[in-house]
C-alpha cells in the first residue's frame, strides 16, 4: 500500500482531517515542493565564496589598493551588515528564535567573516599586538559568541568555537601530528572549557539547543588529543583518560539518545585500545586474530544496544 493510499484510508477513518489530507497528499505527490534547503545552500556557499574572494583580492592587491581603501571597504561592509542585523533582528530570547527573514543568518555570518578579515589585515599592516596577535582570536571569538547568542545563529557559534580553538593553538588537520605535550594539554583544556560553558548555559536555560554544537566539537577535539597522546611517554595516563572519556561519551550518548556520541566513544576508544595492544604484538596472525575477536566483542555490545534502542535517535 502506498503512502497516498494510506492517506486516503486515514481520511476515511477520520484519523486525519480533509485539510491535512490535502496538504500531505500534495507533499507526497510533490505538488508542493520546497526549495528551502537549496536556496540556503546557495547563500552559504555564496557568502563563503564572497569573503574568500575578498581575502584573496586583498592578499594579491593590497599594495595597489591601499590601506585606507581596503579598511574603508571592509568597515563599510561590516557596519552595513551589523546595522542590518541589529535593525531587523528579533528581540533577544533565551529560547530558540527563528530568523526574521531568509537572508538574516547569512548577513550576520558575512559580518563575522568580514570582521575576521579586517582584524587580520589590521594586524598584518600595523602590528598593534605583535607577539600577542593571538589575542585577536580571543577578541573575535568573544564577539562571535555574543552575536551567536544574540541572534541565535549556529554558523556564527561554530565560528566562535573555532576561533577560540585557534586561540588555544588548535587546528583540526594538525591533530594527526600533535607531538607537543603543551598543545595536547591545550586541546584537552579547550574541550573542557567549551563543554563546561555549553553545559552551564544549557542548565541556565540559555539557548539550550546550542549544547550539542559545543559537545560535538569538544568530543572530537578531546578524543583526537588523547589518542595522539597514547604514543607519548605518558601513554598510560592518556589511555586511562581516553577510556574514561569514551565510556562517558557512550553512556551519556545512550542516556540522552544522542547516538553520534556512541559512535565517537566506540570508534576512538577502540582505536586507542587497539593501538596500545597491537604495539607490542609483531606477529601478523596474532594482530589479525586480535582484530577479529575485539571487533566481534564490539559488535555483540552494539547489537545488544541496537536491539534495545531500535530506531531511536
Amino acid at each position, binding site marked *: 500500500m502506498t503512502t497516498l493510499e494510506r492517506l486516503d484510508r486515514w481520511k476515511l477513518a477520520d484519523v486525519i482531517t480533509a485539510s491535512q489530507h490535502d496538504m500531505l497528499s500534495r507533499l507526497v505527490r510533490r505538488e508542493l515542493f520546497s526549495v528551502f534547503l537549496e536556496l540556503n545552500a546557495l547563500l552559504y556557499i555564496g557568502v563563503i565564496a564572497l569573503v574568500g574572494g575578498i581575502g584573496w*583580492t*586583498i592578499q594579491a592587491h593590497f599594495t595597489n589598493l591601499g590601506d585606507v581603501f581596503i579598511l574603508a571597504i571592509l568597515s563599510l561592509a561590516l557596519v552595513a551588515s551589523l546595522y542590518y542585523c541589529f535593525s531587523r533582528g528579533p528581540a533577544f530570547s533565551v529560547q530558540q528564535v527563528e530568523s526574521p527573514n531568509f537572508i538574516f543568518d547569512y548577513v550576520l555570518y558575512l559580518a563575522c567573516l568580514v570582521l575576521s578579515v579586517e582584524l587580520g589585515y589590521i594586524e*598584518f599592516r600595523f602590528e598593534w599586538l605583535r607577539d600577542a596577535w*593571538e589575542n585577536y582570536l580571543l577578541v573575535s571569538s568573544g564577539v562571535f559568541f555574543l552575536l551567536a547568542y544574540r541572534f541565535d545563529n549556529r554558523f556564527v557559534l561554530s565560528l566562535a568555537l573555532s576561533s577560540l580553538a585557534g586561540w588555544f593553538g588548535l587546528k583540526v588537520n594538525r591533530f594527526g601530528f600533535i607531538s607537543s605535550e603543551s598543545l595536547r594539554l591545550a586541546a584537552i583544556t579547550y574541550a573542557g572549557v567549551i563543554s563546561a560553558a555549553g553545559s552551564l548555559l544549557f542548565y541556565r536555560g540559555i539557548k539550550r539547543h546550542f549544547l550539542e554544537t559545543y559537545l560535538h566539537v569538544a568530543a572530537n577535539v578531546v578524543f583526537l588529543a588523547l589518542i595522539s597522546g597514547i604514543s607519548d611517554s605518558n601513554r598510560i595516563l592518556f589511555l586511562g583518560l581516553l577510556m574514561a572519556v569514551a565510556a562517558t561519551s557512550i553512556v551519556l550518548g545512550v542516556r540522552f539518545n544522542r547516538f553520534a556520541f556512541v559512535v565517537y566513544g566506540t570508534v576512538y576508544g577502540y582505536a586507542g585500545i587497539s593501538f596500545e595492544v597491537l604495539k607490542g604484538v609483531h606477529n601478523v596472525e596474532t594482530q589479525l586474530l586480535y582484530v577479529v575477536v575485539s571487533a566481534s566483542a564490539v559488535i555483540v555490545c*552494539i547489537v545488544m544496544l*541496537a536491539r534495545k534502542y531500535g530506531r531511536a535517535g
Partner: protein
Amino acid sequence: MKKYDLKDERSIHTERLVRDWADSGLLSQTQVDRIKPELNVDLRQTNLFLRLILFGFGFLIILAAELLAGITLDIEGEEALGVFCAVTAIGFFIVADLLVNFRLYRFGIEEAAAASGVILTAVAAAALAESFGLGRGNAERPLFFGLLVASAAAVGVYRRFGYLYAAIGSMVCLGAAPFFLPIDEVSSRLAAAGLLLVMFIIVRSVRRTADDEFPGNEYRLIEAAAWLGVYAFLNLHLDSFDAAATGLYSRTASIALPFYWFTYTAIWLLPAIGLYLGLRERHRALLDTNLVLALVTLATNKPYLGATRQPWDPILLGVLLIGTAVTVRRWLSKGENGRRWGYTADRILSSDKQAMSVVGTASAAVHMSGHVPEPGTASASSSHQDTFKPEGGRSGGAGASGSF
C-alpha cells in the same frame, strides 16, 4: 529475488514520512499514535549511528578474518587467490542472506557481509583473469574484468537487498572499467560517459513506470548519480581544483581539440538539461546534483579556456549565488501564498531545519581546518609583510591564526 516485501519497505518509508510530518506539526501526537500501529513491520532496525558502527566493525572483522584465513591456508598465486576469494565471497553472500532471515533491515552487519562479498568477487575475478593469462600484454586488463564483475555483483546485491549504495557503487565500477582497457583517453572517457548515460536512461525509464513513492524515490537517486557520473567523465578539468592532482583527469594535454571542445559544450549543457528536468519533474536529487554541477562548471570554465583565475573570481561567484538565491526567494514569495507552480521557498518539514543545524555544527570543522577565510590575525613578523593570507592559520581557529 528481493529479500524484503515491498509492503514492508513501503510501510517503513511511510513511517519515516509520518515522523517527519509529526515533527513538523503537520500531524498531532494523537494522530500519530493512531497511525503508527498499522505501520509496524516485523523487521529489526536500528538508528543510523549504530548502523554505521555495525557496518564498520563488521567490515573490519571480515577483512581481518579473510587475511587471517589467507595467511593460515598459505594462499599463494593468482589462481589460488581467485578461488579462495570466490569461495569466501559466496560465503559472505550466504551469511548476508542468512542474517536477513533474522529479520535484520539496514542493520549494518548484513550490509557489511554483502559489501564484502562484492569486493571479494571483484578480487576473485581480477585474480582469475590474471591466472588465465588475460593480463598478458596489458597488466591492467584483469582490473577491467574485476570492475565489471564487481559492477554486476553490486547490481545483484541491490536487487536482492535494496542497498542504494550498492547500485551507485555498481555504476562507479562500470564507469571506471574502460580506463583499464588498452584504449586511449578519449575512448575511455566516451565509453565511461556512454555507459553511465545508458544507465541513466534505463533507470529513468524504470522509474517512470513506477509510482512516485518507494522504490521510485530510490530510482531518482540512482538516476542523479548516473548523471553525475556522465558529467564527471566529460569534465576534463576536475583536477583544476587541486593543482597537484594527477591521474585520471590530468591528461588533457594529449586530448584532441574536437573532443576537448565537445566536452566543454557538454559541461555547460549537462547541468542546464539536468536543471530543466529536475525543475520540470520536481526531481530533488536531479535538481541538487545539477546545482552542484553548475557550480563545478563555473569553477572549471577558466581552466577550460586557458584563462588565469583572478582573485576576484570568488567574489563574482559569491555575488552570483547570493543574488540568485535572493531573487528566486523573492520571486517565489510574491506568488499566491508564497508559491508558484507548487514551488515554495518556505521551510515545510522539520527535517530541513535539522539539516541546517547539522550543516551549522559541521561548519566548525570547516573553519577549524582553515578553509574558510575568517578570524584572521597577522603574524607579528614583519618579514611576512608581503604575504597576507586571511585563510591561513599557524595554529588554527577557522584558519584564524597565523600564516600571514
